[in-house]
């Protein structure tokens, strides 16, 4: 135990000495296969390993911070690059909250090879982020790439990691549920209705606002079933920055109480509302 602690202390010291401006995180890129057939899709993920005690940011960073973003450098003909952000955690400090990640985070992203793909292709990207803890913020940037050879897919040891990561990112369920937003003076009443009878019970009742400046990031959004009605409701405060009337809201919702979804049907979901007219 003692040696374990000592090793940990040593690790921390080393980190402090050598990692002045590295953004307190390391980034690499994994692929389900080192090969891909022409015209077929390839599942990959950007992996970020964040130093203990630090966090990076979600698409809506919260009260401060900066969204983790990526710029692609793809060979001609390759399509894709919609980075999927896993559900964030909330880190609050006083009345402020950050929405983001600690530890290891995987951002799945899928590409499609061009129909005439042959030989090898190098996919490149620049990842930019901000890492903060209670005491400091440090920016990070990394250039990463992967080489893909033309040929039938052969699953790598990372395929399972990517598949797990995909199970933790929100699934668009706007064809099953309808999100409605009623704006009041200082609050918002959010309602979710199933759109058809085959829709299963909504287990993803804990929500995070992907749209910034609508709901304060410190506010917990918890949907409860409306008694005797087939709907779920949550009343939340309105962001102090929502000065004009609210036009759109995107939420990601998770089943409460667990890190990893227990079942496939518990996968996080995303729902969007847009003001009509």
């Amino acid at each position, binding site marked *: 135990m003692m040696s374990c602690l000592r090793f940990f202390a040593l690790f921390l010291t080393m980190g402090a000495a050598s990692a002045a401006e590295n953004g307190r995180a390391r980034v690499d890129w994994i692929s389900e296969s080192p090969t891909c057939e022409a015209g077929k899709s390839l599942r990959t993920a950007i992996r970020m390993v964040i130093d203990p005690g630090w966090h990076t940011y979600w698409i809506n960073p919260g*009260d*401060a*911070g*900066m969204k983790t973003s990526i710029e692609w450098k793809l060979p001609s003909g390759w399509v894709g690059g919609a980075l999927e952000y896993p559900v964030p955690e909330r880190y609050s*400090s*006083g009345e*402020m909250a*950050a929405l983001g990640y600690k530890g290891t985070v995987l951002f799945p992203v899928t590409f499609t090879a061009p129909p005439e793909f042959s030989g090898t292709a190098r996919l490149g990207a620049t990842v930019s982020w*901000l890492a*903060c803890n*209670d*005491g*400091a*913020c*440090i*920016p990070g940037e990394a250039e990463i790439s992967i080489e893909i050879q033309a040929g039938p897919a052969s699953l790598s040891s990372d395929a399972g990691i990517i598949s797990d990561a995909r199970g933790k990112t929100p699934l668009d369920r706007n064809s099953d549920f309808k999100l409605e937003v009623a704006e009041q003076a200082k609050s918002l009443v959010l309602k979710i209705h199933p759109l058809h009878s085959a829709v299963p019970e909504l287990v993803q009742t804990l929500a995070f606002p992907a749209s*910034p*400046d609508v709901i304060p990031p410190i506010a917990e959004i918890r949907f409860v079933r409306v008694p005797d009605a087939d709907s779920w409701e949550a009343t939340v405060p309105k962001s*102090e*920055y929502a*000065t004009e009337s609210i036009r759109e809201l995107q939420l990601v919702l998770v089943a409460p109480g667990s890190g990893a979804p227990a079942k496939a049907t518990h996968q996080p979901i995303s729902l969007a509302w847009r003001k009509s007219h």
Partner: protein
Amino acid sequence: MKSIIHATIAGAFGLIAAHAAEIGKPAPEFSEKNTSGETVNLTDFKGKVIVLEWVNYGCPFVKKHYSSGNLPKLQETYTGKDVVWLTISSAAEGKQGYYDAAKMAEVSKEQKNKASHTLMDTDGTMGKAYDAKVTPHMFIINKDGVLVYDGAIDSDPKDPATADKLFSNALDAVIAGTAVQNPKNKPYGCGVKY
């Protein structure tokens, strides 16, 4: 006894007032030491336009505005127009951006800070009274002591050159005595290290 009760009640209301930094309302009072150890109060600047700028020289968003010369230039321009510019550090001891007063004076000089004063709000009282959230976070108080701007320095952390100059547009309006177009907006930056 009666006067003690009065004082206590006034104190309690004072505290409440201090927590209500709100656009269109009198700006919360403050009394903080500058880097030379002199006490600076809101009431020292009656009849002047005042800018409050929250700083943390270690924060990458702040660094960008100092290394590009943007903030020093704004400070120089507007103090030249009789505006009082207060740069405030609310970083607690041991956190990023914290320096003792002597070191802060040195760093401010290195960074070419041209503010009227740099205030040492190490215990965060002033920051919390104004609800300063990030660095940089900008506030403007008009000649009547009313808070008229609470927001970002500009609209885009990536490219100050093309960003909407939210803060300086607001300050120009305040100096001209016209209405501020966007008095409350969300500032970007690093959380204040209270």
